[in-house]
């Protein structure tokens, strides 16, 4: 069967088997190996990507089900060589050790910050409760998310220089 979807802004059409899971479509058909393939049972959360702006476990979604929808993977976080603040946060606060859970953690916590710019530790831990870090580095993951949240709040409060035009037009 033929499936057409948008992945990181690009429209993609492929001939696939109905039983192909979205995680394998992303990795094997598109070469987007940033989305990791872990437990296969929707428990570990390393395969999390977005469908229509919401994090989903791509090991438990058929590629065919994503047809007509917008998918965003961890590769879609960086834009024009600029890291997303959540990626920076994980770098700054040592939010990864082996890195296997990181793509899923990044996609889930990016979605969290889009909904809640100032999440408490409890909120962050709840958001990633469907994801497993086998290095058990949860404390630094929480710090990384808080770092990114603080950076985004600062950026909003004090627009960077050169952005004065938009500030002027807004006021």
């Amino acid at each position, binding site marked *: *069967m033929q499936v057409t979807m948008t992945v990181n802004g690009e429209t993609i059409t492929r001939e696939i*088997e*109905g*039983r*192909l*899971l979205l995680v*394998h479509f992303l990795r094997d058909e598109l070469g987007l190996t940033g989305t990791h393939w872990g437990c*296969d*049972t*929707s*428990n570990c*959360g390393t395969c*999390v990507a977005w469908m229509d702006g*919401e*994090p*989903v*476990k791509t090991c*438990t*979604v*058929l590629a*065919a*089900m994503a*047809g007509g929808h917008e998918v965003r993977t961890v590769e879609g976080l960086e834009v024009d060589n600029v890291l997303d603040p959540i990626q920076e946060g994980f770098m700054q606060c040592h939010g990864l050790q082996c890195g296997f859970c990181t793509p899923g953690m990044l996609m*889930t916590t990016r979605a969290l910050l889009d909904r809640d710019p100032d999440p408490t530790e409890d909120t962050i831990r*709840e*958001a990633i*409760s*469907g*994801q497993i870090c086998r290095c058990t580095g949860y404390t630094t993951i929480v710090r990384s998310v808080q770092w990114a949240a603080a950076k985004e709040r600062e950026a909003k409060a004090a627009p960077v220089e050169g952005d004065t035009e938009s500030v002027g037009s807004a006021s």
Partner: protein
Amino acid sequence: MQVPAPFEYTRATSVDEAIGLLDRLGSEARLIAGGHSLLPMMKLRLANLEYVVDINDLHDELGYVRLGTDEVRIGAMTRHRELLESPELAAHFPIFADAERVIADPVVRNRGTIGGSLCQADPSEDLTAVCTTLDASCVIRGAGGERVVSMSDFFRGPYETAVEQAEILIEIRIPLRPHGSSAYAKVERRAGDWAVTSAGAAVWMDGDVISDARVGLAAVGPNATGIPAISEALRGQVPSEELYAQAGAIAAESCSPNTDNRGTADYKRHLADELTRRTLRLSVERIRAGEAGDQGTQAEGRD
């Protein structure tokens, strides 16, 4: 690597189209909504299907929580996250948010639906206990029209429901009754797991007296079960710890848990007792807090 056996994927864009497809494709076809129960079963070859009919496009038609005068209607494609965030359900049935917070995890809740949860009819599933507690009914549609069945008629055994091959569960209806509240409690081995045992309670009060009460248990029998003997024991009584203990004892006696890797039968009976007490107590507290809270606000306003 776990992948389902080969099947043909097709998509329905309306309820009638879904019914037509099921009718035409026959017993080797199944609907897929959130897919977080069906796909794992297909991966393990516990479900072997020739056709999978994707009904996610029906979310526009069947994704809703509608507050009426005497009932709340929930579309079968309403996702767990939408149930958790529904202000209508929070206002009238706090049991929903209690349960949704402990169903799987936030990412799974973005996909899973109430209709899928009920149709899966897993004995440990939480929303089946919630709907049993609230005396919900299910609207099932087929080519010949719609029928409405009670929760006790909906469940026919583990993983079996009253929904026939060419039918689809489209709506869940929950009666609205005044002066009531509800609560849910679950014991699980780890975050997001199936229940070792869980209990839901709903209580309605007339002044200081319980006018009606219902308790529903999950994971301690073939299906989620309501316990009429508890309702009988509580009606007309003034809430007290002794009364909750009496209800808990009935819950422990009435259920039929199995010893498995989630716990022994004795432990599950103990949990049925304890969780029945806790949810009844919390339901009554919520009723009183709601009323006392209103009065308090008014009193402060006058001062």
